[in-house]
């Protein structure tokens, strides 16, 4: 019983958690969800960001690494819309590449942790018993390490870089997906329509793929879009501490650190623009996650 005790005690909504109820229909419903005006705008914003990261550096054409001490520390202008840094590098070019890095590392990490977490959650939810309890405790153990702390430890253990950052985010994300999926599977297990399938003689595999998985995926999607937001923040935080993706690769958090001393003396553009980039990306992914959650949650729809 101790395993089930945990659920009512600690529901896990939050920047990261969230119980979701299944909504009818798959593809079409998802599209209808995006059809809601707000969500559509959010999705467009994210697509714009993706395009910016993918083709932006190609279109802009300035080299983010080209040092030009002549034009160091210039404020925003026509040639350098985001100004230049202490080495005269174009901040806008660096900003564009930074977007690419945040998205690439974030999406990879979230993909890995959502797959692993979903599998673990589904497994423990279905098996139950002591296996569930032990894995549950282990996941709680992982939860004791926020992504930033885990990233710190991994950077120490294996040297800082994109791999340690991505791994830290992926590992710390796993328990959230596992919890969401596990509680969803548990609640589904007691739902009558699953019993109805058993009465009809459906094999377990069929029930899992046809009826459980689709219900679970909604929750995972919500979690994943919140996870991207969280990942972008963690990448930047580790970069700020010098434990993230190493210079000279332009990474938003690292860029903010580099500009930090100049910011205090008034040359704000080197730190402010990457920060705004993070803000925009995180806000969009969170809004997507919240929007999806509200859409999938029947309570959300009943809200006045």
């Amino acid at each position: 019983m101790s395993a089930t005790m945990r659920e009512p005690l600690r529901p896990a909504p939050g920047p990261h958690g969230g119980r979701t109820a299944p909504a009818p229909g798959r593809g079409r419903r998802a599209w209808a969800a995006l059809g809601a005006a707000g969500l559509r705008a959010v999705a467009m914003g994210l697509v714009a960001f993706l395009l910016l990261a993918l083709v932006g550096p190609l279109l802009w054409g300035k080299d983010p690494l080209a040092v030009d001490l002549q034009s160091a520390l210039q404020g925003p202008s026509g040639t350098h819309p985001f100004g230049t840094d202490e080495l005269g590098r174009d901040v806008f070019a660096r900003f564009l590449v930074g977007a690419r890095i945040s998205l690439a590392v974030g999406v990879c990490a979230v993909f890995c942790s959502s797959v692993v977490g979903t599998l673990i959650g589904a497994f423990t939810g279905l098996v139950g018993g002591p296996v569930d309890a032990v894995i549950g405790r282990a996941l709680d153990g992982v939860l004791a390490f926020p992504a930033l702390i885990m990233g710190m430890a991994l950077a120490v253990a294996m040297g800082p870089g994109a791999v340690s950052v991505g791994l830290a985010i992926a590992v710390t994300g796993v328990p959230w997906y596992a919890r969401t999926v596990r509680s969803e599977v548990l609640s589904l297990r007691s739902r009558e329509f699953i019993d109805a399938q058993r009465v009809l003689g459906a094999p377990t595999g069929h029930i899992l793929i046809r009826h459980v998985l689709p219900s679970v995926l909604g929750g995972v999607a919500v979690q994943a879009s919140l996870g991207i937001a969280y990942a972008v923040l963690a990448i930047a935080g580790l970069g700020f501490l010098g434990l993230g993706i190493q210079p000279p690769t332009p990474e938003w958090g690292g860029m903010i650190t580099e500009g930090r001393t100049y910011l205090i003396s008034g040359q704000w553009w080197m730190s402010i623009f990457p920060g705004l980039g993070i803000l925009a990306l995180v806000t969009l992914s969170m809004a997507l996650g919240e929007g999806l959650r509200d859409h999938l949650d029947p309570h959300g729809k009943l809200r006045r």
Partner: protein
Amino acid sequence: MNRNGSIPAVPGSAAGAATAGEIERDLLLRVRGLNVAFGPADDPVRAVRGVDLDVRAGEVVALVGESGSGKTVSALALLGLLPAGARVSMDEAVLAGEDRAAMSEEELRLVRGARAGTVFQDPLSSLNPVQRIGDQIVEAIRLHRRIGTREARRLAVARLAQVGIPDPQRRFRDYPHQFSGGMRQRAMIAMALASAPPLLIADEPTTALDVTVQAQILDLIQELQRELSMGVLLITHDLGVVGRVADRVVVMNRGEVVERGETAQILSRPSDPYTIRLLESLPRLDVAKRAPAAAGGEPDGAARKVALETAGLEVVFSRRGGAIGRKVTNVRAVDDVSLTVGAGRTLGLVGESGCGKTTLGRAIVQLADATAGQVTIGGTRLGGERARRLRDLRRHFQLVFQDPQASLDPRQRIGRILEEPLALHDLCGGREQRRRRVVELLELVGLGTEFATRLPHELSGGQRQRIGIARALALEPSLIVLDESVSALDVAIQAQILALLERLQQELGIAYVFISHDLAVVRQIADTVAVMYLGRVVESGPSEQIYREPRHPYTAALLSAVPIADVARERARERIVLHGDPPSPADPPSGCAFHTRCWLRSRLGDPEICTTARPALGGRADGGQHRAACHFSDRQAELLPPSLLGATRGASA
């Protein structure tokens, strides 16, 4: 709105008669032209349209209607308890003897609780789970009277005693979850009556309760109403309850009042077509199964094939408790149950909540694992086979669930839902044939082909239950277990589904195990009946015999507790009222499990044997199918009230 123009005591329908002058002395509640609308102003949902209502001191007025008829909304509107989005208007209103229109929000708030008490349907959710019962009553008292805590406590304990809560001093300190359902509703009533209001509004006060507990609560409300000469507005969907306690009835349908009058007149000679239909579709405890199907005079068992047989079936759930899960509690949900259902026949399985009837149903269809005993369906003994073989066998026995919404996958279209079992069992070859079969199935349950493309949530409750039945039929089973399958439906829909089930049985020869808490419904459909109490069958036999001359005191009490929608007969009945709630199945009483609540035992002077020996399910000396598990079942007939179900039908019609 007043189609019959028969509002007894209204001096003319001219509005303003009461607003200007003083309010009649015994008039507690009056409303004229009540309208409630929800949603956007340009496309409102008009939940209540032009309702007129009167309640006077010392009378019980029942506001009757099916779900969605606007009866609850009307009451909440009068009390000012509707959520923010509702738009309420009324031409004239008196609440608790005062002019409601002239009241400010604050004055209305003070009338609530002080002059108008309210009891809601679900006592568990209506009580604050983290406050002591006593404190919640004390709050109700002190909101309206400036008295000290100690004095208020004394009053609260007195109220608890008044509503029949034993040991009120101690129970005062309990939390709602420590009370049983009936006790919670008593506590709700104590809270509503905390300030001795002249008006009580009770919204489906017994709907969430078992029938024997319902009988106690109705008695309590009636008693208190007489004692305090309160006016009571009773909101209910149950015409039996109306027949039992109401003086006058107001019938609502789709937000409008369709008929009003004296209870006796409305129940025996309704004039509005809606009320007539409602009464016709009402299953009645005092009316036998309409057509005894193909039964004729053929004796059971001999020629007829057996669809289902259970022998000594037992389901024990183990719960682990304690710090490290060492303590194990065993709950015998089903205990030594042996039943037989003939092919094409219906067994009604009745009992109150927690008696194990649902678990028995699940054990029959192999959803719950039996810990002992056997299930034999269509001659095949089940249990112990490989998973694959069991899956194949499943096509012979199907289950229809109580909640059609929950038992259908919300993401699948109806067509897919009905096709799935066909595909799983590879029943009709190609996709095209399956499609055709789906259309057939839809027609079989009286739905059109267009339903195939819809999603479950686009259907009404009745339609969804038809889909549940169609899905079970898809595999052409020989047995269907129906677990409270019509309980959530309004009576008119319920009657349609029951008729559908009967038709299908005649056409396809399916046997049913019909599980229900509603004895009236069971009487209408069952050929044989088994009554369960705490996991055991206490009485079984042909339906007619059980309803006419029950041989177990529990069955008699159940029958006696069900109210009948016929004033003359209902009020002529001599009732057996059981005390207390059913004990916990985790800790059943010794000997005969019913002895703690048994009226027969107390009439017989509490014989010792009831507490020491468990009675076997035994037949009568004449060797019939009618069995009862009672040491004194032969003594019961002489002690039974003669008018258990009222007089026979012929006498009143």
